[in-house]
């Protein structure tokens, strides 16, 4: 049995990115990424600015995972989201009645949910839920 940790260092360290959605945007090539970084992953530029990721986007791709690790209840639906205004976010869908509701191009928004358990502690983060077409 692993000793419970006083906190999840990973989630503590990435608090600004995970909860306040702070990433970076490259002033040279326009690449948007997170967590914050000092060197643009795309072009190597140091000319970066903080960029708050939007909570809305559309599904770029997804799958329906019937064999996730033991801490997850299958099926789970991992998604890659094209965020409004650029950049991508990797996460899980939530609150779908059936995985078949998710399609490439589905409109989604982030909601704060329990993501997993790290050594006995619940850790929270953003998941995506489908939003009605306007």
């Amino acid at each position, binding site marked *: 049995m692993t000793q419970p940790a006083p906190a999840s260092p*990973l*989630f503590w360290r*990435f608090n600004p*990115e*995970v909860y306040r959605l702070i990433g970076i945007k490259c002033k040279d090539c326009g*690449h948007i*990424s*997170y*967590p914050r970084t000092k060197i643009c*992953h*795309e072009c190597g530029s140091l000319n970066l600015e903080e960029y708050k990721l939007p909570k809305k986007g559309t599904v*770029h*791709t*997804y*799958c*329906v*995972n*019937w*064999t*996730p*690790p*033991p*801490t*997850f209840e299958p099926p*789970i639906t*991992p998604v*890659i989201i094209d965020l409004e205004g650029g*950049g*991508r*976010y*990797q*996460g*899980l869908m939530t609150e779908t009645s059936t*995985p078949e509701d998710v399609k*490439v191009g589905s409109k989604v928004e982030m909601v704060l949910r329990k*993501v*997993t*358990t*790290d*050594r006995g502690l619940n*850790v929270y*983060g953003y998941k995506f839920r489908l939003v009605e077409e306007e």
Partner: protein
Amino acid sequence: MRGKIAVIGVGMIRFGELFDKSLENMVQEAYLNCLNNVDKGIDPKEIKAAWFGQWSGGFIGQGTQSGQSLASFIGNREIPVTRIENACPTGGDTFRHACLGVASGLYDVVLALGAEKMRDKPSAESLGGAGSGGGAETGSHPAWMIGHGGPSIQAMHATRQMYELGYTMEDFARVAVKNHHNGMFCPYAHYQFEITLERVLSSYVVCWPLHLLDCCPQTDGAAAVIVCRADLAKRYTDNPVYVMASNVGVDHSQLWDRDSFVEQLATVRAAKGAFEMAGIKPGEVDFAEVHDCFTNTELMNIEDIGFVRKGEAARMLKDGEFDLHGRLPINPSGGLKAHGHPIAATGLGQIFEVVTQLREEAGQRQVKLKKGIGLQHNVGGPAFGVSVVNILSRTV
């Protein structure tokens, strides 16, 4: 690099669920098979450096291996030995390092050996829990703590291949049918049985759109290659195979940084550089061993290497062009799908196959040689951002 390096010996063990063999047992068997494969004989002391491919180390209960492990296993502690880990291309990159060792002029004869025990722990603990992206309770970033592993990452590519290229689950399944057919003729393959399209499509859905039989198995195995200076090769064998090119390509290590999900830039870069190094075009390759960890991945690889244009691989597969006796045989060994995927041994097992084919010693699965050129490819990592391509030929 071209013209400088020759393969003089290859050796492996049958891949499979080898509960009766330890890592050391597997390494020693592959090594001895490799020495015995050098037809004019070799004194093991002529090997002046070695590289040990080991992907998972401590993750799945093999302990953390380093160069000393291989040195002890083969009873040769007088030479420099380095461990190589580079995700699923570990085996192919271990071969590359051996080639670089000879090309540098420092060593005349060197060993590349890769081995992996995947089956001592259940799948959920080995692959699922091991990858930096795959772990539920590990990972480089919280965004990875969502249960991702190889199948879910490739399934997200497959979804996009269906959306952008019009590929279908039948198209993916045909890869499994072809590779299982080839694997029947390979005595080293983990799976040596035929499967039908219906059986693939009715197998358990691991990760939609991929079925169980779209996924390669988890496999134990070891494979070894001895390379030497090209001008010394005939001392050791009448049938050397020459290295034309050996290259690694990389891309982003996070999925969200990547642009396309129907193309893996790591492969594109590894292949482009390798073809430039070799001074040949993709059309001059007779056959290839490519990294079909999942069926959809094989189609993507065939396109990314540059054999066909994006979106054409599925139709050409259906037309039989990639069959054992087709225009461009892909994975005559059975591929990862049937031959198995003991990660660090995988690439070296593919080199074994390419060398065996180029020597025309592959028996029932022998492909027809035209130019006498074969290609080996791996791709992997948390966002499939690292790839290796090696090109070998019958003539210098």
